[in-house]
């Protein structure tokens, strides 16, 4: 059940400038969330931002009642989180959204994750779940430069997962777009991946959509939109769809199959 949780900031971990993780004490939320879901976060009393901001659950620690977010600083909301002092109280509205699906896959199958930069946010949680389901994971993590992947340790070490890095400037892992690196790897395979989970900027999604279509892989994209409420009432977060005019991404998503999205109607982010 959705609720507005009072949460205390326990610690912040900086990976590189503008990339950090924040861990809150929010036991009830930790209990309730599934990988791919998100929360709407408010830092009370701040003049900006006025609206809450959406953050994917990066991971939870049930025993300690902790919820973690991976964040990239781009504006007032994320900056407020970067400046938040430990012990400070925030509001976390959640769990929200639909989450990833993998339970239909029998153990031993191989799945892929493609993440662009901060798009990796929802995956520590998912990778643990996939591991528990005995699924094998190839994680393709890409960015412009090495510093964009400064949080990569946060994604390693899960039982049966392999981490493939790619940077556009070649400063870390393979040189090039992570989508191309994934494509090459996927094509080399005899059996296609049982599923692809992806999160990143819209540019990455638009490049990835035709690739998964070509390779015939069932994919789930964790999409982004400007969210006013996070629970389906402001209708601000719609994404142009194929099967109907719009998808309300905060409730029908944020996890969406690429074939439902009308990519040609998407307006690039300012």
């Amino acid at each position, binding site marked *: 059940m959705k*609720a507005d949780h009072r949460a205390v900031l326990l610690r912040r971990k900086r990976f590189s400038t503008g990339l950090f993780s924040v861990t809150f004490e929010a036991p009830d939320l930790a209990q309730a969330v599934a990988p791919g879901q998100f929360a709407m976060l408010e830092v009370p009393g701040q003049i900006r931002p*006025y609206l809450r901001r959406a953050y994917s659950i990066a991971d939870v620690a049930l025993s300690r009642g902790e919820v973690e977010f991976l964040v990239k600083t781009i504006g007032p909301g994320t900056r407020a989180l970067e400046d938040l002092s430990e012990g400070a109280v925030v509001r976390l509205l959640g769990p929200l959204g639909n989450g990833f699906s993998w339970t239909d896959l029998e153990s031993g199958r191989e799945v892929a994750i493609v993440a662009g930069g901060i798009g990796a946010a929802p995956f520590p949680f998912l990778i643990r779940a996939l591991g528990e389901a005995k699924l094998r994971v190839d994680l393709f993590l890409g960015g412009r430069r090495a510093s964009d992947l400064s949080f990569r340790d946060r994604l390693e070490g899960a039982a049966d997962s392999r981490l493939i890095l790619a940077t556009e400037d070649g400063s870390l892992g393979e040189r090039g777009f992570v989508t191309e690196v994934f494509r090459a790897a996927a094509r080399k395979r005899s059996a296609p991946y049982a599923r692809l989970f992806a999160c990143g900027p819209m540019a990455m999604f638009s490049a990835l959509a035709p690739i998964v279509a070509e390779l015939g892989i069932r994919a789930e994209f964790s999409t982004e939109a400007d969210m006013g409420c996070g629970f*389906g009432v*402001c*209708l601000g977060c719609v*994404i142009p769809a194929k099967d109907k005019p*719009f998808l309300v991404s905060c409730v029908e998503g944020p996890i969406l199959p690429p074939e439902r999205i009308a990519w040609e109607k998407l*307006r690039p982010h300012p």
Partner: protein
Amino acid sequence: MTATTLPLAVRLGSLQLKNPILTASGTFGYGLEFTDFVDLSRIGGLCTKGLSLRPHAGNVPPRICETPAGMLNAIGLQNVGVENFVKEKLPRLREIGATTIANVWGDTEEDYVTVVEALEGADGIAAIELNISCPNVEKGGMLFGNSPSATASLVSRVRKATKRPLVVKLSPNAPDLVESARAASEAGADVLSLINTLVGMAIDPETAKPRLSFGTGGLSGPAIKPIALRMVFQVARALPRVPLMGIGGISELTDVLEFLAAGASAVQVGTANFKDPSVSGRLVRELETYCASREATVASLVGRAHRFGEARDAGAEG
């Protein structure tokens, strides 16, 4: 004892409410999205998302952006359509015991009338609220609410189509608010609700592109409260016998008290529902405590600011 002697109960003409805290159209979905946060039977009422004859898709995104102490929206009146609302949403609202006010809009007078007629048969609707801040396609897209005559003609037609209490929601962008208010009330509105959003704009400083794909959008939130409050005061002064619902930037009990003092018999909470989905229920409880501690009824709090005489509505700039 009769309902009106309950401390929080208010009567707006033919519309009787258990308390004066309602939720504003477009900020509360169809009510059902809030059942995790609010007991819908405890708030004074809820106004549905604006309903049209057929399901409506709305504008392409980006549809919202935030502003200092507020937000802009150009949703484009996306809604499930009146038929779907009556079939899918209304029965559940009735079960829960919600006081449902159906907010209605259309492209033509005919549209409005047809929607209201479609609702007339259905049970569980306490009142109709007309959103007149939309383009009249038969008048080259000029907004119904921006001309007193267009307002009068629309309201009188809708008036004939329903026996229910009729709320007309005024636009703050109208050239002469008091004239629009008078027109709506003389044409048969039982209650006036104000204000709808103010037309605003935001631009991306880097790309110089308007942040909303529609270009302009409606400004809402605490930023507009002083303007909304002035408009409620102004209309209450000009039309002392017309019951008003105050809307605009309400998120705290003190905001509610201000609007009551300005002359509103009830209020609608809007954008605040996005930040805090339980705000409406909280305000009801806080208002109960407030009235109890002062042994006051809500009715006794309405219009108190007018005792201090005519607040000049002159510009007073500088």
